[in-house]
Each structure stands twice: as structure tokens, then as C-alpha cells.
């Protein structure tokens, strides 16, 4: 009905582009996800310290990054950080070039965006921890740190997992926006291919399917992890 033409897919050059694109997408997602989780943990830990100025700073950070478009954050990082002085002189040519590559800019801004979301997820996980569990740990003689590592962290991690799954899939999907600042990931090569072949719809459908497949794998893996980590006998919640 649509008359789709996928004959271009037989071309090894396009196959290679798609493969490089997928690999770079995975790299970008893995890098920014790990950084986001780290930022999330540090931020949530910062909240639990109950230092008012630190709390205020973390909250501002979270609100700024989750209430502005990640695309704009990436564009800002890419186009303005070098203007603001993040430049080095290339020793071979003697020209002043940006210190950060497009890939680095995308990775940094995605990490901050994902980190802001992760802080919020981890914080709500710690906040929904039943107060009475903490009391029980205290009455058994656990001190502040032992309580955090032995009781609160293992329980909060499990409570946070569904929220974390949402953030990681969200972040994975957002990596496609890095194509706008010429990071050679899957979406970028999609553009290259249809500029070559003019098969826009065919390319987009294929790329959409690849993304859905990759995100589905991530979702399933996280669901397996959630099931593995779940408290036996409790279903999903506490």
C-alpha cells in the first residue's frame, strides 16, 4: 500500500553506517546513564544530610534541568561552551578548536539532564521508606552509617528501581536528539542515509523499529532486575 522500497538496505555502506550509529548510540546511552545514576546517588545523599544550603542548591539544579528542553541544553553546551572559553589550540594546525567534541557535549548535557531526574527518583525512594523500618533498625542498635548501608540503601534501591527504569529509557530515547549537534549516532546516520537515497519514510520506519527494539530490550532487562530484586511476597511495592 505504501510502496516501501528497502533495496538500499542491501548496500554494505549503509549497513555499516547503521551499525556505527547503533554502537555510538549505545556508547552515549551507557556513558550518560552511568553518570546520571552517579549524580542521582550523590544528589540524594546530599538531600539526606539535611544541610539547608546544599539542599537548596540541589533542588535548583534539579528544577533547571528538568524544566528546560534537553535539546536546548545540548545546543547550549555545543554552541556556547566553546565561545565561553573552553577552547584549546590544536598543536598540529595552530588553530583554536573547541575543547569538547560534539560527543562530549552531548554526553555531559545528557548526564546532567538524567542526573536531575535520577536525584528526584532516588530522593522519593528514600522518602517513601517506611519510618517504622528506620525505628526498628535504630532499636536494634544500628548507627547512622550502618543503618544507611545495611538497611536503608538496600530497601530504597528496590523501591527506586521502577522510577530508575523510566529515567534510563527516557535518557536512551533522548540520545537521538544528539544528532542535532552532529553526534554520529543512529539518528544522525539515518539523516545521512536518506539524504543519499531520498527514502525518508523507509529510513525513519527502520530507525524507529531499531530504537523500539533497543529500548524494549532495556525495559525487559530492567523488569528482570526488578523481579530479581523484588521483596519476596510483596509484589511490586512495600
Amino acid at each position, binding site marked *: 500500500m505504501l510502496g516501501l522500497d528497502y533495496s538500499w538496505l542491501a548496500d554494505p555502506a549503509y549497513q555499516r553506517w547503521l551499525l556505527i550509529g547503533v554502537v555510538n548510540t549505545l556508547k552515549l546511552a551507557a556513558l550518560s546513564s552511568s553518570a546520571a545514576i552517579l549524580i542521582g546517588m550523590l544528589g540524594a545523599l546530599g538531600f539526606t544530610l539535611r544541610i539547608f*544550603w546544599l539542599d*537548596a542548591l540541589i533542588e535548583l539544579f534539579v528544577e*533547571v534541568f528538568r524544566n528546560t528542553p*534537553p535539546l536546548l541544553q545540548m545546543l547550549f553546551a555545543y*554552541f556556547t561552551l566553546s565561545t565561553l572559553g573552553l577552547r584549546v589550540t590544536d598543536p598540529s594546525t595552530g588553530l583554536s578548536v573547541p575543547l569538547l567534541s560534539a560527543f562530549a557535549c552531548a554526553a555531559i548535557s545528557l548526564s546532567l539532564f538524567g542526573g536531575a531526574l535520577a536525584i528526584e527518583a532516588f530522593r522519593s525512594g528514600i522518602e517513601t521508606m517506611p519510618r517504622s523500618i528506620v525505628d526498628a533498625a535504630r532499636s536494634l542498635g544500628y548507627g547512622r552509617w550502618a543503618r544507611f548501608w545495611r538497611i536503608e540503601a538496600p530497601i530504597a534501591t528496590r523501591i527506586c528501581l521502577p522510577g530508575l527504569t523510566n529515567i534510563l529509557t527516557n535518557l536512551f530515547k533522548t540520545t537521538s*536528539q544528539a544528532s542535532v549537534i552532529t553526534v554520529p549516532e543512529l539518528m544522525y546516520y539515518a539523516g545521512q542515509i536518506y539524504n543519499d537515497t531520498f527514502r525518508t519514510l523507509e529510513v*525513519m520506519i527502520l530507525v*524507529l523499529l531499531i530504537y523500539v527494539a533497543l529500548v524494549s530490550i532495556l525495559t525487559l532487562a530492567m523488569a528482570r532486575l526488578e523481579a530479581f530484586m523484588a521483596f519476596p511476597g510483596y509484589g511490586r511495592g512495600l
Partner: protein
Amino acid sequence: MAGFVLHYDDKKRAVQLLITLGVVVWIAVDAATGGSAYWTRVLVRLPLLLTGSATGWPVTGGFVLNILLSIASMALATALGTIMGLGTLARVGLIRVPNLLLVNFLRNSPWLVLLFATLYFLPFEMRIFGTIVPFPPFVKAVIGLALPTAANFSEVIRGAVQSVHSGQWEAARSLGYNTFQIYRHVIMQQAMRRMIPGWMNLYAPLMIATALATVTGIQDVLTILNTLLAMENERVIVYFYLTILFLFIPYCYPIAAIARRLERAVKGDSL
């Protein structure tokens, strides 16, 4: 004495207010000294960025277009999401399974890719019942952004309906209600309270995603920004980007904050 004690949250708000004031003062100082020329450029272009026309009227694009786009998308997403959500709750597998597949497909698709796919999938115009319905880029953007939001909204509906205690179904059935009547008079009335915060929670991400609509070629704030930047020098770019970033915050933050407050209020009550 108690009146003078600053509580933890008060101190926190005070610090945040100070930082915000600090940014304002910094901008003022910068505008008064070295940056004045740059800020003047931004100020001159501000009506264009906001409304799409240099004088501020009529509205042909800009940030206002992003807002209109988000509202239109939200309306469409609400309608589509309701249908999909009830579809995923259907007891007939032939209705439920395709709906679940569609919802999961849309939820796992990147917004940008979905927007591109919509852009190329929909023709310029379509003949429906003899009348020609055109699909300008704006309409395509509305549809492209509504699809993932609709899928997320259908999950909100499903969650809210499933959170109504199963005893309610049994009680209503024992009173002789049919399925449609149970949904209409019993389940939806109770689920609505749960749904509203979930529905509102979808709006801020949608508004943020309207920045992607620049790929459809509509004159949204990012498209205008790109056109402008071609005419400005490198240094001014920083000021323009900051301005746009801070257009989104005062619009999105209050809505997101209200949604979260509502969510917290609803969380406590058991249905």
C-alpha cells in the same frame, strides 16, 4: 519568640531566593557594564522570539506557538490516550492485545524519531469523505507529539482504574450495573481523582518536547532562534540561549509543581 524561628524549609527557600536574586543582579551588572550591547540585541529580538513577529503582533510563531502546540497536542493526547487506555483494559483479547502493543511501541519510541516518522508518514493533504483535509507542518507536529503523550496517558488511566479496589466491581455488579455503567458511575468517578495529577504530570514534559518541533519547520522559538543566530555574532549566542532556556522554566516549573502537590495529596487516600 516562635515567630522568629526560621524553619529548615524557610532557610532553604531563602537561599534559593538569594541565588535567583544573584542571577538577576549579575544580569543587571553585566547589562550595565560590558554586556549591555549583547543584552540590547536580545531585547530587540525578544518580541520576535516570543510571538514570531518583530513587533509582537500578530502571533505567527515563537514561544507562544510552542505553548499553542503543547495545548493542542495535550488535547489530542487526552482523547487518544483515553481510547487506548480503555482499550488496554478491555476484557476481549482482540481489543486489548493490539492496544497494549501500540501503547508499548509508542512508549518505547524516541520522541524525535516519532516526530520525523509522523512528518514523512502523513501526506500534505488527505481526502476524508470527499473533503480535502490539509496536513500543514503544525498539524503534523501536533500529532507527532500527541502520540507518545497519549501512550503515557493511557498508562495513567490504566493505573488509576486498576487502583480502584476490585470489591467495587463486585459490589456494582451485584447491584445489577453493566460494564459500561460500572465504568461511568463507579470506577471513573473514583479513578478521576488519581488520574488528574498523572495527566498534569504529562504536560511539562510535553511542553519541553515542543522544542523538537523545530524539525518540522514550523516557526517555533528554536527555529526563530536559529534564523536569528545566523545574523548575530558568536558572543551574543550565549545570551540568546540563556534567554530561551529561562523562557521555559517560569512556564513549566509552576505547572509541574502544582501537579506534584496534587499527586502527593492524592497519594494518601485509599480508594
